[in-house]
């Protein structure tokens, strides 16, 4: 049913008052016949009918006010004039024509010609805006580590701000950094809510579920593949008899917990043994580059920690300068921070050697992937109570464990690795059940 709407009679007029209906309900109306008188702030006008037919219903009475575009009366009519005058008058005078947004009305910005929808722009990963450079300089950030969410992967100001607050979450680690360790156990990566917030998995027709890859997962996948493809690994297993270590720990762990407030695990002992061995065999504490093998002076040991979303490898810096107690505290601290996602940038960077306590899962043998930037990674497998034949031929129940090492065969040979492992074994086996923990 066509309606007569309040006409727009002039600039800045937004409403009008019906002063007099010249036709009543049920009246026949000719085209262009004056039908109603309205008054606005600027003018009083008679409105000629845009329809020919019958006025069926008056919607706004004399004396009432209606905004421009509001319906005033209904007709039973043939629209003789195309009510263009009516329809291109939106109720809100703000927009003169409601053209669809997208293609129809290209936006003139920075020039009269519209901006093309997909501009050809160079890949932006290495193009940094002034503010990004400024922030990087102020906070001593390696921008290559920062994940970019801008177009074409550009690192934005907000990306840097997020990275400063939570570097673990917003890192795209380059080949040198050990933020992620790949083991046959489920690998993981610094979690961030958005990074892990993969879109909901979609069910496939056969009942399978497709879990879309989160950004973190993609990153891990890329790094793992990179490590796998570029580092030629070799692998070795050594068995150590840690019976005395076990006895030592059993005897001292309660007192330690009471005094130190943190549990005494085997990890501090493992780290000490590794560090001692690295001092003797520094070639294992190195980074392989095309320009040469950089043997590190410091011993920063990455200690893998299992968190609910996977594995994180915080770094115990200068592990060679720490006592058992010191290592115990630090490992517990780092573990807690890792679980709470509060690790700082320094706490996940710069490992020179990595230790993964796969034994915690009950594993007896593992074949870890070498973290890019290091030449070796060692696992400590589960301690098992097994029968062994002693020197004198008798059987004894011993606590034994496997130590597995993967090493970069570009930088190291089996002999070097073997000697290192023998040192680790010797250090562990030299622990006496009655020695001082401190």
């Amino acid at each position, binding site marked *: 049913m066509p309606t007569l709407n309040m006409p727009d009679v002039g*600039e*800045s007029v*937004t409403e009008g008052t019906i002063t007099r209906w010249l036709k009543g309900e049920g009246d026949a109306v000719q085209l262009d016949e004056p039908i109603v008188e309205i008054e606005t702030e600027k003018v009083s006008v008679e409105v000629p009918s845009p329809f020919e037919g019958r006025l069926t219903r008056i919607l706004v009475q004399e004396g009432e006010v209606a905004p421009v575009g509001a319906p005033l009366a209904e007709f039973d009519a043939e629209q003789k004039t195309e009510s263009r005058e009516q329809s291109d008058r939106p109720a809100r005078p703000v927009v*003169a024509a409601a053209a669809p*947004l997208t293609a129809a009305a290209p936006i003139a910005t920075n020039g009269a010609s519209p901006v093309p929808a997909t501009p050809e722009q160079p890949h932006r990963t290495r193009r940094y805006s002034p*503010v990004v450079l*400024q922030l990087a300089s102020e906070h001593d950030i390696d921008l290559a580590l920062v994940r970019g969410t801008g177009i074409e992967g550009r690192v934005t*100001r*907000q990306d840097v701000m997020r990275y400063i607050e939570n570097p673990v979450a917003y890192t795209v680690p380059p080949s040198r950094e050990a933020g992620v360790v790949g083991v046959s156990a489920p690998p993981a990566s610094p979690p961030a809510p958005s990074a892990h917030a993969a879109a909901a998995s979609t069910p496939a027709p056969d009942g399978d579920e497709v879990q879309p890859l989160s950004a973190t997962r993609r990153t891990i996948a890329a790094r793992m593949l990179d490590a796998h493809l570029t580092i030629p690994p070799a692998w070795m297993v050594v068995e150590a008899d840690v019976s005395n270590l076990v006895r030592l720990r059993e005897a001292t762990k309660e007192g330690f917990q009471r005094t130190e407030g943190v549990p005494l695990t085997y990890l501090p002992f493992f780290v000490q043994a590794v560090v001692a061995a690295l001092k003797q065999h520094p070639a294992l504490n190195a980074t392989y580059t095309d320009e040469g093998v950089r043997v590190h002076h410091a011993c920063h040991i990455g200690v893998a920690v299992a968190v609910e979303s996977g594995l994180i490898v915080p770094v115990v810096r200068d592990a060679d300068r720490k006592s058992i107690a010191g290592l115990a505290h630090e490992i517990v601290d780092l573990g807690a921070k890792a679980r709470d996602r509060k690790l700082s940038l320094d706490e996940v960077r710069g490992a020179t050697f990595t230790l993964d306590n796969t034994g915690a899962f009950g594993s007896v043998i593992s074949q870890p992937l070498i973290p890019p930037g290091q030449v070796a990674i060692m696992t400590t497998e589960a301690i098992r109570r097994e029968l062994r034949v002693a020197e004198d031929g008798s059987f004894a129940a011993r606590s034994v464990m496997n130590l597995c090492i993967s090493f970069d065969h570009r930088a190291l040979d089996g002999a070097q690795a073997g000697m290192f492992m023998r040192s680790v074994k010797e250090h562990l086996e030299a622990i006496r059940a009655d020695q001082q923990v401190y």
Partner: protein
Amino acid sequence: MAETTYIDAIRDALLEEMERLPTMVVLGEDIQEGGVFRVTDGMLDRFGPGRVLDTPLAESSIVGVAIGMATNGCVPVAEMQFADFAFPAFNQIISEAAKWRYRSNNGWGCPIVVRAPSGGGIRGALYHSQSIEAMLAHVPGLKVVAPATPYDAKGLLKAAIRDPDPVIYLEQKRAYRLLKGEVPAEDFTVPIGEAALRREGDDLTVISYGMMAHECLAAADELAADGIRATVLDLRTLAPLDREAILDAAKRTGKVLIVHEDNLTGGIGGEVAAIIAEHAFDSLDAPIRRLAGLDVPSMPYSAVMEAYFMPSREKIAVAMRELAAY
């Protein structure tokens, strides 16, 4: 506090100042019957034809006579019926008023106000829709304001009337009856040269003025629903620009979109962009963008062409999204 329309706020400012200043005169064409927009409604009866003056149809002398009145102790508020018709008066505004104090080495001042309804979107076509602020903001010696709200309309007009120098007061004609807002009854001014931070957000900054400030806020609302948070700065004064506010707003996000209805080239947006580029370079995270009226001789009468010319909340939202994603 009462809700007042933009036009009523202007009228109230004029009435209150006319009461306060016995030598204030409003002059222009059709002023006595209220003016073509009814801004000066009722003033003749209250203040008489000496102070509410209908001038001949001669823009140059409307301003020239106002300058003379100001020289001899009056407080003149001259009206150009439309900003589009101010050009014959540009000689008086630019060669005379703007330079009056400077050329006389502070021997004389020129405290005039020139009011003009400005801007389009009202089917006014080429000669009832223009924006003239860029041409005038370019002239040292002039102050140029473009209030976007009823509150600012009243406060800035009072400030203009009280200012010792020539102030060009560009009323947004589309706002007259369209915009309502809270306006205090008691006397207040809005300082000339001070922008208004309308909204805060860390994702991008939008700088605008006049009716477009409202369009920017509407676009910002839409984007907020999608988690994109914008800072919106309403310049209010175009000369002198509030550099501090501009730079603060730009530095906060590093991404700036400037929006105005005036033609793009040579518009205020270019000046704002240059200020930011020069003084906030290290804070920039994206190239500075401008969204403005097309570079054609003002907006045509046809509704579809007028809409094509004008920036709008829809177009602004698209530009804002692009910038936020950059």
